[in-house]
């Protein structure tokens, strides 16, 4: 089966949201595999461990903002110092319930963020991700 992406990962503390995202991705055959992390730190650790293993690195990171312990922006702070090969492979998409313009502004300023999307994820937003990722510059929804 031909998926737009082989592997994507979700970083979200809400179980329900992770479930929704996973279902939507599966439903629309967006990706072959979905890795879930309920904590940003866990995602960092995974990426770090697999930095020399390209097949383990996801192509899309769907990142939530509001999470306990380490939120989405803090994750990006740590993530930016990862090796370029990881950064270029794993492209970050922010997926949040926040409609706080400060958040979208901060995301826009961060070059790592390709797209800023509001939950819930749906077909239209998936298409947006695809078009955003295939282009070099970042976009906000």
């Amino acid at each position: 089966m031909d998926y737009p992406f082989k592997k994507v990962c979700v970083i979200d503390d809400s179980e329900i949201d992770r479930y929704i995202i996973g279902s939507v991705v599966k439903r629309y055959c967006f990706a072959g595999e979905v890795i879930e992390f309920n904590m940003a730190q866990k995602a960092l650790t995974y990426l770090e461990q697999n930095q020399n293993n390209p097949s383990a690195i996801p192509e899309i990171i769907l990142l939530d903002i509001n999470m306990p312990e380490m939120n989405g922006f803090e994750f990006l702070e740590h993530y930016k110092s990862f090796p370029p090969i990881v950064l270029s492979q794993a492209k970050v998409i922010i997926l949040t319930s926040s409609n706080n313009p400060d958040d979208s502004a901060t995301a826009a300023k961060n070059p790592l963020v390709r797209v800023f999307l509001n939950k819930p994820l749906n077909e239209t937003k998936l298409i947006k991700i695809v078009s955003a990722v295939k282009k070099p510059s970042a976009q906000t929804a």
Partner: protein
Amino acid sequence: MSLRHKIWISILILVLLFTLNSVVIYLEMDDNKEKSQELSEKIAPSLNFLYDLRRNVSERTSLITDWIYNPEKKESKEKLKAFHMESKDLFFEINRIAENYKIPAWQDTIKNISQEFLKQVALEADIVSSLMSLKDYTVDQKINTAKNTLENQIIPLSAYLNKKISGYIRYTTVWRDVESKAIAESTNLIRRLTVLLVLEIFIFGFILSFLVDTILIKPIIEVRDTLNNLRNGIVIKKPVMRGDEIGAIQTAVNGLADRMDEMSSFALSIGQRSFETTFRPLSSHDKLGQSLVTMCNDLKKNIERLEETKKIAGIGYLEYNPATSEIECSNNIWNILDIEKPVIQPTLSDFLKVCSTEDTLVFQIQIRNCLKHDARLDLILPITSYKGGKKILSLSGKHFVTADDLVGKIVMVIQDITERKRAEDELKQAHYQMETFFKNIDDVFFSYDPVTKQLLQISNACEKVYGYTKEDFAESFKLIEEVVVKEDQAYFQEKKLELQIGKPVTFEYRITRKDGKMIWVETKITPSFDVQGKVIRLDGITSDISKRKENEEKLSRTNEDLRKSNSELDKFVYSVSHDLRAPLTSMQGIVELTELETKEQLTAKHMQMLEKSISKLDSFIADILNYSRNSRLDVRREQVNFKELLEDVARELQYMDGYDSALVINNKINVEGIFYSDPSRLRIVLSNLISNAIRYKDAGKEKPFVKINVKADKDSAQIAIEDNGIGIKKELHEKVFNMFYRVSEQSVGSGLGLYIVKETIEKLDGKITLDSAPGVGTKVYIYIPNLHIQN
């Protein structure tokens, strides 16, 4: 005929006469000389000779007689012998004389005489030779022949010679007399001519003197007199009688007299202040004329200026004649009195008319004093002018007496000091007000002279503020510095330095009052400079700002609290909104999934209803969040990109219910320059209004639309949002903006939307109006100012 010609001609004539005379004299004298010469050389000697000859002849005769009859007279014989020796000479002499006589007849006669003389001589010789010795005398024949010769020849010959010689002598004498007469006459003539010459000299001298005197000296004297008169300023002209040089001099002198007349009348007219004259300099070399004209112009200008100045200063001049009560005034006096200059001679009463009765009395007393005691006249006189104007005049006067005017006049200078008085009064009042003000104000006013290091003044309030009195400060101005608390001393000195370089300073610092209390004060000091830029005075005010400082601190604390609470509120709001929103989005996600997965129509329907409710809740939360932010947050001032803004809003709204492809959203944007406002707030406004337009579209209409028209310039932006939706009833146009107002139960929104829009627009200092008709559509007009001006 010119004088020069006259003189020349006279000289010529006289010289001619001289020459003539002299020539005649010369000729005469020459003639005379000739004649004299002749006389002396020819006639006189001839005559003398003839006399001698006659005598000789007579003597010879007597001698020969003696020879014969008196032979013993030896002298006679000797003499005769001597005569005989000279006879030839005589003979030649006679012939020579003959040459003197021009007439041939006479020459012949002389020659005849000479011949006869010779004969006589020969006869004598015969006798002599015959009677040589004594013996001869004894011979009678010889004696008789001798006697016979003597008697018959010698004596008649001698007589004949005598007669002829005498004739000749007569003729010669006559000739001599004639010649002598002629000479005498000639000499007479010469004498006469010489006398004539002398006379001529006299006459010449006389004529010359006459000429010089009458024709030359007299007129010159006249000219000299005229000039002398001119020099003394008297102009007397003599009429010109002659056309010659003297006449020309006289004409010139007359011309000079005329000119002087002109100048003096010019000077007179200037003296009388009449400057319009026809006097002109004669030429570019006429220094005097030009100086006079310049002087006239200068004088005119100066007098005009003086008049102007006097007018401006309101000064006039009045001369009072106590004898006649008449007054002479400058024009300005009549100006001051607001009346035309009187045609008839004005008197003092004309002036007194403008004074009150009491003032008139005072004035008259002063005049009397001035006249009697030579006191100066000085008074301030309030008047009511002829036109009713109330003025105040200042009068200064003095009594002047001259040699030919013993009564004298009072000369006054009068000045209109109404304005000045008014200003003085106003100043007095202002001073009084300021004094009162100063006394009562709580701030310390002070002035300090940095040059003399003297405190010029300090207001009473110093006691209130500092606790020290005016006297304490007067004693030592340093007190002002001494009371400054230690920590603020350095700052105080810094400000002092700034003052020294001429900067006005305002600064706050703490002082210790006399009672030991520490307070905050604020001092403002302004320096004053002299023309060279040196600081010559410092004026300052010190205020007790303890209250203010207290308030400032309170305010700062309040602000701090407010900021804290604001930020807490902010966090709270976001945290609340997020916590509210997150589950909602999750719910939305599940609902969507269920919709996708279910095959049950009922389930799908239920899911849709659920979605609607969730949407409602979501938008309500968003509304509350917006409202909260609008109320609390400051208006941001940023560049607004309307195109981007509208596109963002459209993008957001594409998910909402009612949004479909049938609905056309039209944007028309016209922006001049840069528009500044709060973009996030604008977004809320636009989002709300456009979503309303979408929500309340008229399903019955074929082409539903929303038109957004933006026009912005450097002053403001006008936004119009128009739709052809279901519209709103007129009565409800005002109400729709109320909080939680919903038009009908069918209304989907929270009722907060338009309220938030209105509040937001007001926060941006804008205006919003609504125009709508049910079934037609709705138009919303927004006006917001361009926040480009920095406050």
